[in-house]
C-alpha cells in the first residue's frame, strides 16, 4: 500500500464543457494535500469525483489500492466536509453524527463509542443535543468535521471548510484542523482558495488552474520556486511584484535598470536563458533600511501609498514604470511622498519566460 489515493487520467465534462482534463495525482498515506486554485478551476469538481458524487467521464480513481471509480460514495472509505457544512438542519448534533453510522447498520454501542470519541476530540460534547441552528459558525464547522470523523475512514475530503467564517475564527479553526491531522494521521485532501490556509496546513500543495494541476509540491517549493508566473502570482499576499524586461548577459534589464542575476538558480541548470522575460519579486523579499547595503541591487523610490496592517506596513511605489509593493516592519515610520531605498536579492527572485510564462 503505497498510496492512499491515486487518480489516473481523470477526465470530467459537463456536456461540452471539459472541467477536468487528463488529471493525474497520487496522494500518500497520511499526507495532507491541499488543492489550491482560483474560483471555478475545478477543485470542488475533483473532490466530488473522488467522493463519488460525480460520475467521471474517463480515467480511474483508486483509494487504498482499490479501484473505486464506480463505487458508491459511502463505500469508498471517505469522509467529506462541505463548504456550507451541509448539516442536517432538523437533526440534533448527535443525529447528524450518527446518521451515517445508522445507515451502515452499525450496532448501537459502537455508534455511541464513536460519537463519544469524536465529540471529545472536537470538544463538542456539550452541544450534542442541540440543533445546528443553535450553534455558532465555528461549532457547526466542528460538527461537520465530526460527521466525517465518526465514519472512521482513511481519507478525509474538505471542501473549503473555512471560507464562510470571519478571519479570527478561521485562524483558530485552521489550527484545530492541523492538530487533528497530527492526532489522527489519516490522509486529508483539502480544497481552498485561501493561500494562507494552504501554506499553513499542507504537506503538499497542488495548484490547479482550468482543470489541470499546474504545480504539485511542498509549500516551500511553491512559495520559493513557482513553476510559472500564474503560480507565482497566485501564491503570496500581498502578491508578487512583476517587472517585464529582458534577460541579457546574466542580468535582467527593465527600463534603464539592470538587475544582476548572480546567485539565481536557473531551472535549466545548463546555462542562463536569454530573451524577453519577467522577473518576480515578493514584497517581503525587498529589504529597506540598513540591510539595503548588503544587497546586490539597490534603487531609490518615492512612496505613493502606505497601508499599515498593524504587524506590517505595505508601501506602494513605482519601479521602472511598474507598480511595486514592499512589505516593511509594522513599526516603521514612513510617509507618502518620502524617498525610500530598496534592496533586492536576485537569489530570492523568480524569472519567467515572457511567452510561455514558465520559470527560467
Amino acid at each position: 500500500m503505497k498510496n492512499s489515493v491515486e487518480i489516473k487520467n481523470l477526465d470530467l465534462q459537463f456536456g461540452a464543457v471539459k472541467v477536468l482534463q487528463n488529471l493525474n495525482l497520487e496522494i500518500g498515506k497520511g499526507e495532507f494535500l491541499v488543492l489550491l486554485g482560483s474560483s471555478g478551476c475545478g477543485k470542488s469538481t475533483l473532490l466530488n469525483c473522488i467522493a463519488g458524487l460525480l460520475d467521471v467521464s474517463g480515467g480511474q480513481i483508486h483509494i487504498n489500492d482499490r479501484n473505486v471509480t464506480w463505487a458508491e460514495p459511502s463505500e469508498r472509505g471517505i469522509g467529506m466536509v462541505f463548504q456550507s457544512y451541509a448539516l442536517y438542519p432538523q437533526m440534533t448534533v448527535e443525529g447528524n453524527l450518527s446518521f451515517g453510522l445508522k445507515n451502515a447498520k452499525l450496532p448501537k454501542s459502537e455508534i455511541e463509542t464513536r460519537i463519544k470519541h469524536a465529540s471529545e476530540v472536537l470538544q463538542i460534547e456539550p452541544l450534542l443535543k442541540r440543533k445546528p441552528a443553535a450553534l455558532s459558525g465555528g461549532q457547526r464547522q466542528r460538527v461537520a468535521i465530526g460527521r466525517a470523523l465518526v465514519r472512521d475512514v482513511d481519507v478525509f475530503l474538505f471542501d473549503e471548510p473555512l471560507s464562510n467564517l470571519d478571519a479570527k475564527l478561521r485562524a483558530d479553526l485552521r489550527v484545530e484542523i492541523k492538530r487533528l491531522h497530527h492526532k489522527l494521521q489519516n490522509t486529508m485532501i483539502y480544497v481552498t482558495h485561501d493561500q494562507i490556509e494552504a501554506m499553513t496546513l499542507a504537506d503538499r500543495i497542488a495548484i490547479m488552474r482550468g482543470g489541470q494541476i499546474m504545480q504539485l509540491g511542498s509549500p516551500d517549493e511553491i512559495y520559493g520556486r513557482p513553476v510559472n508566473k500564474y503560480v507565482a502570482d497566485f501564491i503570496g499576499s500581498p502578491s508578487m511584484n512583476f517587472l517585464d524586461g529582458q534577460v541579457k548577459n546574466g542580468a535582467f534589464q527593465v527600463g534603464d535598470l539592470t538587475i544582476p542575476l548572480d546567485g539565481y538558480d536557473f531551472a535549466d541548470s545548463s546555462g542562463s536563458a536569454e530573451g524577453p522575460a519577467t522577473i518576480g519579486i515578493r514584497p517581503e523579499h525587498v529589504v529597506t533600511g540598513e540591510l539595503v547595503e548588503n544587497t546586490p541591487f539597490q534603487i531609490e523610490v518615492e512612496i505613493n501609498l502606505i497601508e499599515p496592517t498593524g504587524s506590517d506596513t505595505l508601501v506602494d511605489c513605482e519601479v521602472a514604470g511598474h507598480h511595486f509593493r514592499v512589505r516593511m516592519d509594522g513599526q516603521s515610520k514612513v510617509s507618502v511622498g518620502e524617498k525610500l531605498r530598496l534592496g533586492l536579492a536576485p537569489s530570492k527572485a523568480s524569472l519567467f519566460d515572457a511567452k510561455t510564462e514558465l520559470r527560467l
Partner: protein
Amino acid sequence: MASTRPNQLFRNKSAKIAAIPMIVTALFVFVGGTIWTVVYSFTKSGLLPRLKWVGLDQYERLWATRKWLVSIENLAIYGLCMLVLVFVIGFILAALIDQKIRFEDTIRTVILYPYALSFVVTGLVWQWILNPDFGVQNVVRGWGWESFTFDPLYNADIAIYGVLIAGLWQGSGLVMVLMLAGLRGIDQDVWKASRVDGIPAWKAYIFIIIPMMRPVFVTTLVIVVTGIVKIYDLIVAQTGGGPGIATEVPAKYVYDMMFQANNLGQGFAASTMMLVTVALIVIPWAILEFGGSKRHD
C-alpha cells in the same frame, strides 16, 4: 464495487423506480389520452367512442361553427385580460400587503378565501350582484344615481367581462399569495439601494423588483394559464354561455358536444385543437425553461 462502468440502465435505479408513476402518468395518461383523443376526433363517435372514420369532417364542421369561433375569441379575450389583470391585481395586492401592514393575516385570508369556494355557487352570486334588477346597479340607482348602468352579464358585447370580474375575484387571491411569497424572497438590500438612489417605490417595483421575480412569475404563469385554458365551471354557473353565445368558451364547447349533444367526435376534434395549440406553446417553452441546464440556483 465495479471497476468497469456499470450498465447505464441500472444506475440511478431507485430514482427510476420512483419516477415510474410519473412516467406511467406521462406516457399512458397524458400521451396515451392525447393520442386516443386525436384518433377519435377523426371518427363519428356519438354517445360512445366508436371507430367509424369520417376523416376531417369533424374539423370542417368545427371551423364552420360559429359557437366554436366565438368560444375561441372569448377565450382569447378572457385569457388575455385575465392573465394581465390577475397578475397586475395579484401583484399590487401583494405589494400593498407587503408594506408591513397590520392585520396582514386577516386581509390575506379574505383575499384568498374565494379560492376555497366552489364555482357552482360563486357564479350564482356574481350573477346576482351583476344583475341590473337586484344587484349593484339597483343599489346605486337606489342611492339616487338613476342613470347608472351596470349590467355586464346582459350585454352580449361585454358579458365576457362580467365573467372576468368573477374570475378575477376567485383567482387573484392565489396569485397574490404567490407574488407575496416572491416579494418576501427579494434581497432587502436591493430595496435599500433603491431608496438610497431616491427611486420611488412604484418605479422600484416595475423596473427592479418585478424583473427579479421571474421564477415566481413562471410558476404562477403555469398555474394561471392552465386555469384559463380549462375555464368551464365558472361560465356554466354564471352565464351558461349567455347571453346568446356571448360567453362560450372552448372547454364548454367540448363539454357541450360530449355530454349534451352526444357528439364525442366533435368534442374530441375541439379538444384536439385546444391541445395542439397548447402543445405548440408549451413544449418549446418547457424545453427552454426546464430542459438543458441542470440546476437553477
